[in-house]
């Protein structure tokens, strides 16, 4: 019996007074492709960070309370070998002034450290991976000179090169053109077919999610809906979710003022 890729029981996160995640219960079987949707500030990124064991790591703004349990491949997140998990962070986190070539970024995903010198073998592997995501031409370009969509491809290659069992993607389609988005789903599906990996992907593109995901998680601080796309994204459920979404969001803003 294999453990679920992701399991959460009554998982809550609060930043000071503000509750970002409320009693989340979730079970994702291995091999699933879950699209996570929800409005801005719904706690989507917070949920992915919890799976990485980062829910407190980056905090500088008051105390964080965490309760409930999280398991990734049956293990507490901090005990999961880092090589098992590939992560593409949300775009706003990138420091474009750092002097680096796209190839180095990809190699850093393999080494889990920053490379001083890249070996021939690493170069070959990284180039093959960049080629797979249609970004081989970017290998020797500087990070600061890549467009938003190009950067996303490089980061995707970076997360895939370690051949993870679990892929956590925070809005990887942001800034990517229509062809690029189709490519993205193609790469992810091919990778899944090859490795049987699990994918959790945050997106604001409900339609694409509906076509490609095996399950959709509608999140707005708590789980609004979770299941096969045709069930969760039916007209009624959607309006219900949006109703909650709008209402909840106002509460959020009011509560934080």
């Amino acid at each position, binding site marked *: 019996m294999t453990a679920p890729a992701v399991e959460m029981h009554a998982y809550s996160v609060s930043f000071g007074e503000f509750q970002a995640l409320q009693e989340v219960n979730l079970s994702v079987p291995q091999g699933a492709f879950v699209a996570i949707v929800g409005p801005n500030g719904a706690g989507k990124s917070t949920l992915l960070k919890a799976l*990485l*064991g*980062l829910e407190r*790591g*980056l905090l*500088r*703004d008051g105390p964080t309370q965490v309760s409930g349990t999280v398991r990734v491949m049956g293990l507490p997140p*901090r005990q999961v070998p*880092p090589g098992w*998990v590939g*992560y593409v*962070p949300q775009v706003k*986190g*990138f*420091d474009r*002034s*750092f*002097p*680096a*070539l796209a190839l*180095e*970024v990809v190699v*850093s995903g393999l*080494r*889990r*450290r*920053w*490379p*001083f*010198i890249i070996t021939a073998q690493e170069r070959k592997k990284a180039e093959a991976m960049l080629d797979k995501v249609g970004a081989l031409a970017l290998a020797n370009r*500087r990070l600061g000179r890549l467009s938003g969509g190009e950067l996303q491809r490089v980061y995707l290659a970076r997360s895939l090169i370690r051949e993870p069992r679990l892929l956590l993607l925070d809005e990887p389609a942001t800034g990517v053109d229509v062809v690029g988005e189709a490519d993205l789903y193609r790469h992810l599906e091919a990778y899944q077919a090859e490795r049987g990996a699990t994918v959790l992907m945050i997106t604001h593109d409900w339609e694409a999610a509906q076509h490609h995901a095996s399950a959709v998680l509608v999140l707005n601080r708590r789980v609004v809906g979770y299941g096969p796309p045709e069930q969760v994204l039916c007209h009624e459920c959607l309006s219900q979710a949006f109703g909650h979404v709008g209402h909840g969001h106002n509460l959020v803003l009011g509560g934080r003022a």
Partner: protein
Amino acid sequence: MMEALQLPFLQRALLAGLLVGGLASYLGVMVVQRRLSFLGDGLAHAAFAGVALGLLLHEEPLWVAIPFAVGVSLAITWVRERSNLGDDTAIGIFFAVSVALGVLFMSMRQGFAPDAVAYLFGSILTVTQTDLWVMGFIALGVALLAPVWSHWAYATFDRELALADRQPVLLYDYLLAGLIALVVVVSVKVVGIVLIAAFIVIPAATARLLSRTFSAMTVISVAIGVFSVVPGLAAAYLFDVPAGSAIVLVQALLFALALTLRR
């Protein structure tokens, strides 16, 4: 010029300059890329307070300044990790406290303190055997810690990714802060308190202009840090000007060149 190299105090000055120049420009790469340029200034003034306390207590200033500056550096890091205040604010507070304490300690001494001026503006010719030993030990420590470069670099590139890969980012932050403080203190005699920040930042900033990768930036920065000492000291000897000023001006000249020459 050549026979000048026979003089022991000049030999010590040259060796001290090379060691400190290499150390400052190596750590400077992290300082510049993490936007902590102001940290050099803050710690230089912590060193000033430490030196002033040492002079007041009639102790060797180095032994007081080292724990003082390292303590301040770790405290700055602690405040940065624990609050949402900007780095400049955290550093600024400790900067002010250090200057206040330094001035207080100076005023408590009887009479004028000519030796204090030497610390403010540097006096590379007064570098002692002890100073050299301390610099050598720090250089050895940093060399042994060379593998940490790739951990610092990773967290500099993207702290979140480094944490997601379970790097002990916080531990390395404290290590970096401690080492920067040590280098600042031993740089005091070479360039003086008022110029240390420039000494840390300019080689790395110049290298940044000329590099496509972080490893190249590191190598070029250290090369500039080390080699700018030689013409700097030569100018100081030939024209009888303060060595710290001469070295920093050579570095600034290289920076200006890089700015005009870069592709």
